[in-house]
C-alpha cells in the first residue's frame, strides 16, 4: 500500500458541500487534481494525503475493506453496509450535519399500534387473515434485521425498497416501513406515523477511521495532523 494516507470524501450532493465547508473552515483546502470531473484530489499543504471522491455508501465499503484510511459518511450507512462495523471501523467525530433518523413507521390508521410489541402482538392474527407475514419495506436490510432481532420480533418479511419507500404501504407492496427521515413530513403526507419506540438510529455524518487499512507511522502522522485541524 502507498505511503500516502487515503481519505474518502462524498462526491456529490449536500453531504459533499457540507464536507467541503467543514474542511475549508478548518483551513483544509481540498481540490481536485487533474480533470475537474475527476474523482481524485489533494489537500493543500499535505503532500502525503490522497483524497478519493466517492458516493457516501461506497465510502462505507472503502472503510470496511481498508481501501481508505479515513472517510466522511453517515453512521446509518456504516452500520448498514458493515455487518461487524464495531470491529472494522472507529467513529472519530460526529460532524454536526447530515442528520437523519432511521425509524419504524406504520400507517396512522393503525390506532391499535404504538410500539413494536403491539405489532408483535397482532402479527399472528394478521398472518391468519392474510396468509402471509407482515411485509416491511426498507433499504436498511441489516439495520432492520438487527433491530427487530434485538427486540425479539421475528414475524415479518423484508421487501427491499430502493426509492419512495414511504409510499409502499399505500401502494400495497408493504405493510409498514423502516426508512430515514429528517422532519417526518414526508411520512405524515403518506399517512404514516413513527412508533413510540421506533427510532432505530439517530444518524449524522461522521469522520470514520478504518481498522482494516494498513497503518504505517507516516499514515498516523498525516492522520494526527488532519484530526488536529478538524478538532477531532
Amino acid at each position, binding site marked *: 500500500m502507498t505511503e500516502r494516507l487515503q481519505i474518502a470524501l462524498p462526491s456529490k450532493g449536500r453531504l459533499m458541500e457540507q464536507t467541503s465547508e467543514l474542511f475549508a473552515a478548518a483551513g483544509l483546502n481540498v481540490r481536485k487534481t487533474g480533470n475537474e470531473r475527476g474523482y481524485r484530489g489533494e489537500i493543500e499543504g499535505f503532500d502525503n494525503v490522497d483524497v478519493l471522491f466517492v458516493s457516501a455508501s461506497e465510502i462505507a465499503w472503502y472503510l470496511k475493506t481498508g481501501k481508505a484510511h479515513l472517510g466522511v459518511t453517515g453512521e446509518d450507512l456504516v452500520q448498514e453496509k458493515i*455487518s*461487524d462495523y464495531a470491529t472494522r471501523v472507529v467513529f472519530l467525530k460526529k460532524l454536526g450535519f447530515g442528520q437523519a433518523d432511521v425509524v419504524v413507521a406504520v*400507517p*396512522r*390508521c*393503525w*390506532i*391499535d399500534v*404504538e*410500539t413494536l*410489541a*403491539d405489532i*408483535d*402482538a*397482532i402479527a*399472528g*392474527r*394478521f398472518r391468519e*387473515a*392474510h396468509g*402471509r*407475514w407482515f411485509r416491511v419495506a426498507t433499504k436498511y436490510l441489516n439495520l432492520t*434485521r*438487527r433491530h*427487530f*432481532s434485538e427486540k*425479539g420480533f*421475528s*414475524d*415479518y*418479511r*423484508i421487501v427491499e425498497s430502493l426509492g419512495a419507500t414511504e409510499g409502499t*404501504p*399505500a401502494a*400495497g407492496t408493504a*405493510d*409498514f416501513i423502516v426508512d430515514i427521515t429528517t422532519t417526518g413530513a414526508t411520512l405524515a403526507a*403518506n*399517512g*404514516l406515523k413513527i412508533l*413510540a419506540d421506533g427510532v432505530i438510529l439517530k444518524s449524522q455524518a461522521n469522520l470514520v477511521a478504518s481498522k482494516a487499512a494498513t497503518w504505517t507511522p507516516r499514515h498516523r502522522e498525516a492522520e494526527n495532523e488532519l484530526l488536529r485541524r478538524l478538532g477531532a
Partner: protein
Amino acid sequence: MPAETAREFEALEAQARTLMTTFIKAGHEAVAPAIIQPADIYLDVIGESVRARTYVFTDPDGDELCLRPDLTVPTCRLHIERHTAAEQKAKYCYNGAAFRFQPSGRDATHPREFRQAGIESFGAADHEKADAATLALVIEAVKAAGLGNFKLRIGDLGLFRALLAAADMPERWRKRLLHQFWRPEAFRTELKRLTVAPAGLAGSLPGRLIALIDPSKPQDAPRLLAKHMEENGIDLVGARTLAEITENLLVVAADVRAEPLSARTAQLLENYVGVVAPARAAGARLKDVVRSEGVDISAALDAYHRRLHLLAEMGVDVVHADFSAEFGRSLEYYTGFVFEIVSPELGQGSPLAGGGRYDGLLKMCGAASDQPAVGAAIHTERLLAAKRL
C-alpha cells in the same frame, strides 16, 4: 479457513455411509431434496431472522432463492409434493449439504457449508413411540459411526402447552405467553405485565377511545373507531382492514378491564420454566410444582413418562439424560419433545445432533392441516471432530 481437503471429504463420506445404512435399515427411505430452494418458503415458515443466516440470492429472472439452511423444510416440501394431502405415513432419511452464514466467524465446528445427515418421520399416530424411535435411531447411528462419549439433553414443549392450557387466564393471554415463550426476556416481561397491570398493555394507545370501547358491546366499536379516525383526519392506508383494527382494539379494551393474572399462576409458570433435573427425576419435580396449585397436567406428564419408558426399552440410557423445561426455546417450530446430543469436548454451543417434534411445520409448508412429524439431524462435521478429540 483452509479449503476442504480430499481426505476430509472422504472421511465425511465414509461416516455418512454408516449413518445412512443405519437409517435405511430402520425403514427410512433415502431422499435427496433440492439444494436451491425458494427463499419465500423459508422466510414464511421460519421468519425473517433465518435470512440473516441464509445465503439468499436473486436469479436472472428476478426470483429470490436460497441455499438451504437445513434439510427439514426441503424434506417437508418433498413429502407434500409426493402426497398433496400430506396425511400419508412416511419415513425419510438424507445426507446432504446445508449452508449458513456464521456471523461470529467460521471455524471447524461452525463451517458455512456443512453436511447434515438426518431422518424425518411423518404421520405416525403414536407420538411418544415415534419420538422415542427417532431419538433411539439417531443414537444408534452416531454410535455406529464411532462416537463413544456423549451427553443427552431433552425437553418437552408439550408440558408447557398443557400447563398453559390448565392455568386460569383468558385464552388471548395464553396465546401471548406461548408466542413469547421463545424469548425468555420478553416472556418474563409479559408475565409481569399481566400480573401487575394488564391495563399497561394499552401503553400509549389513545386512552379516550379505548375507554369508550366496551368489550361486551362489540357492535358499537366500528362506529367509535370511524368517528375517532374522522375527527383526527386519519385515512385508511394499507392492507389491514377496519374490521381487523376494531377486533384488536376490542382485545386491548378487554385487557384494560381484565383482572390481573394471579401472582400464584405467574409464579407457577416461572417455577415450571426453571426446572432442570435428571430426566427420570424431572417428572416428579414437575408434578410437585403443579400439584400445589391444583393444576392438572397429568395427561402430558403421562406422555412424558411413557416416552422415557419406551426410550429405555429401546436401549437408550435415560438415567444420565438431563431435562430442562426451557430447552427448545430457541427453536420456534418445535411443538413437543426436543433433544440434543452434546459432546463434552465441543460443549453445548455446538451440539452434534438435535431434533424433536414439529407438528405444525408441514402445514406451514403447504399441507392442508397439521400433521404429526418428528425428526432429527446430525451435524456430520462436528460428529467427525468429536470422534477425533
